[in-house]
């Protein structure tokens, strides 16, 4: 008797999420492609619910980062000094943000701490790309010639100097960007779209169950 109850509960645990995903997905598909007021209204509601739940999931993830670093401080693991800085500034921002996202402390920290740090971090890439240009772009094969010549033409054609040197340069750059590059990207976009559709169909037919929490989500 207990085994039966156990089996039913395990069965329900597996099938309820799957049924939910398939049913909701089917409804959303109808909402997406057709204009039926009731379904559209329900679909809108579900979309808004998704926004709320995803926001909550983001919140959980962010809190998890803090918990991980807090644990590192507690256990005095390697690099716990840095974790103190991380956790304290995060808490300062969160507490200062209790009245609202527009509070003066929060915006001040964003404008003068987060912004310079993030902008500077990404601008470092310019230096690395320069050393890569010097060391990495060797003309070893015809393929690399094609690659490097394209990159050079695009680089020179984008800037005023290119136009100064020759009117042809920006035009060739335009052609490269609008014809071969677009062709390649179009192929990639079509391929990715196909993959997205395939994956979505797999999820909506229950063949793939990424929400199951199991290691192997396919049957």
């Amino acid at each position, binding site marked *: 008797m207990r085994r039966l109850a156990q089996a039913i509960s395990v069965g329900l645990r597996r099938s*309820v*999420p799957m049924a939910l*995903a398939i*049913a*909701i*997905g089917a409804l*959303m598909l109808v909402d*997406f492609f057709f204009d039926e007021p009731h379904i559209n209204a329900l679909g809108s509601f*579900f*979309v*808004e619910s*998704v926004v*709320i*739940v995803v926001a*909550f*999931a983001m*919140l*959980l993830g*962010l809190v998890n*980062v803090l918990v991980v670093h807090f644990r590192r401080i507690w256990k005095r693991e390697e690099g716990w000094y840095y974790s103190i*800085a*991380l*956790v304290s*500034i*995060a808490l300062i*921002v*969160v507490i200062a943000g209790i009245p*609202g996202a527009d509070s003066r402390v*929060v915006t*001040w*920290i964003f404008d*003068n*701490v987060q912004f*310079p*740090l993030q*902008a*500077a971090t990404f*601008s*470092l*890439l*310019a230096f690395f*790309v320069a050393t890569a*240009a010097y060391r990495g772009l060797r003309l070893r094969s015809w*393929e690399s010639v*094609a690659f490097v*010549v*394209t*990159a050079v033409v*695009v680089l020179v054609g984008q800037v005023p100097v290119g136009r100064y040197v020759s009117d042809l340069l920006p035009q060739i750059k335009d052609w490269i960007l609008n*014809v071969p590059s*677009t*062709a*390649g990207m*179009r*192929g990639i976009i*079509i*391929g990715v779209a196909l993959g997205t559709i395939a994956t979505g*169909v797999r999820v909506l037919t229950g063949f793939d169950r*990424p929400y199951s*929490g199991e290691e192997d989500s396919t049957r």
Partner: protein
Amino acid sequence: MSELVTVWLAAILTLIVYSYLLGDNPLYRLAQHVFVGSSVGYAVVVVLHNILRPRLVEPLLEDAGANWPFLLPLLLCLLLLSKTRGTTAWLGNSAVAFLFGVGAALAIGGALLGSFLPQIQASWVSVSPGSAGGRVAAANNILLAVGTIGTLAYFYFTVGVRGRPGSGLVRFTSTVGRWVILITFGAIFGNRVMAYVSLLIERVYFLLGDWLGLLG
């Protein structure tokens, strides 16, 4: 806070990040942790005040009677919370399944209507005789179509599971695709360099202008 202090703080932080060029150092590490901490904190504040409060908390608190449907997202959020403990994690599967159901459906619809069909149509229409433009435009359009097909052929027949096909036409198309992709990557690289240089210019402009006041 006086303007001077804020500018100096921002400048010092920028220079600390640039110290990475000298090599990884503790000051840089500290700066990175401060960055992560502040962005985590800021994201929490924005999520709470921009989304959760106005969309979930306020409707339920103000008029729980009329806004009873909002109990569904509340329930889903609580189910998601159960994922933090291993024993109750299975409860959260339904919430995740809901997200996946909606997400997958929207993704399918969007990919179909927004990317797949329009892009296929673009390749097709441009080659059909009715389209406008001179001979150059027509030639470009043919090249576009051939390049697109070549790219797809390259990925499908060479990178895919099937391995090398025998047919000459297919192999030719894959080769065309390969060269098209090379040019595409070259263009991507060139554009990336441009982007990073622009970011550097912005920071240097700040350092020279706002901090040192050297710019007019």
